[in-house]
């Protein structure tokens, strides 16, 4: 591969800069988690439909297509999804944080935030 040295150097500099800035932003935002520890909320089409405690083991079915999450030993993982790309099966929520997002199913599961309203009294189970 023949690329002018100056251009090659610029490419690498740009690459290093993008990675550096991205990781900086990532770590800057990952430290300010002031949310409650053990309750997660389930959003479906942007609305909170359930709250689940991470202290209780169990399986929770979220929508009619059978999307199911499992809570075990304080960890929440996805146990069934009907979507094709299975991106969300690699996501988990535990005491260190994290969230589960399934774009095809329009599901977002994350820590309860202080800004969210607490009117949701529906509980899955």
């Amino acid at each position: 591969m023949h690329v002018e040295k100056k251009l090659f150097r610029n490419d690498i500099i740009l690459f290093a800069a993008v990675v550096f800035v991205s990781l900086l932003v990532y770590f800057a935002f990952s430290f300010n988690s002031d949310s409650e520890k053990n309750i997660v909320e389930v959003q479906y089409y942007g609305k909170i439909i359930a709250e689940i405690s991470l202290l209780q083991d169990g399986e929770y079915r979220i929508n009619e297509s059978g999307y199911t999450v499992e809570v075990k030993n304080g960890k929440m993982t996805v146990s069934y999804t009907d979507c094709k790309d299975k991106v969300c099966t690699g996501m988990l929520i535990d005491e260190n944080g994290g969230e589960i997002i399934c774009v095809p199913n329009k599901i977002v599961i994350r820590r309860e935030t202080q800004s969210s309203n607490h009117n949701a009294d529906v509980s899955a189970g």
Partner: protein
Amino acid sequence: MKTGKITFTALLLSLSFSLSLIESFIPVSAFIPVPGLKLGFANIAVMAALFLCGRFSALCIVVLRPVLNLIMFGNITSFILSLSGGILSYAVLVISVKMYGKVFSFGGISIICAVFHSIGQVAAAAFVVSDTVVFGYLPLLCAASSATGLLNGFIMNCIIERITILGGSKNAYHAK
């Protein structure tokens, strides 16, 4: 458009479609655990189209590849995501390709496109799930996709070099 140009665009479109099929067999998320990360080989064909056939051909590939994917597999979510990412990165590509040979090789241009592709996709994902929490993945996705972008850019450099050696002018179809 001349017939030769239309044919060549169609060839590149089918190439980008096959590349996106092939890359779906490579389990890249097993090595780099970033959700939604893909190698993006299909974008090599877009860059090649822009370089060899011009803007309109590249736009055709950007728009028609997701459409083909939708017809073949019926996955509406991946259609929305790849279309929004593709159009945003196409717009940036058209602007940033002016820096080719002056500031960056295709490596740098491809990184810029990859970053904007990620931004477009994450924005579309946030729109689909109606929650901004998806943006939390943007930094990781940008970092990882700039690596794949660099890889694609270097592949593109090799392609352009081969085409030049084979006697194709830099703008094969522009010249005519």
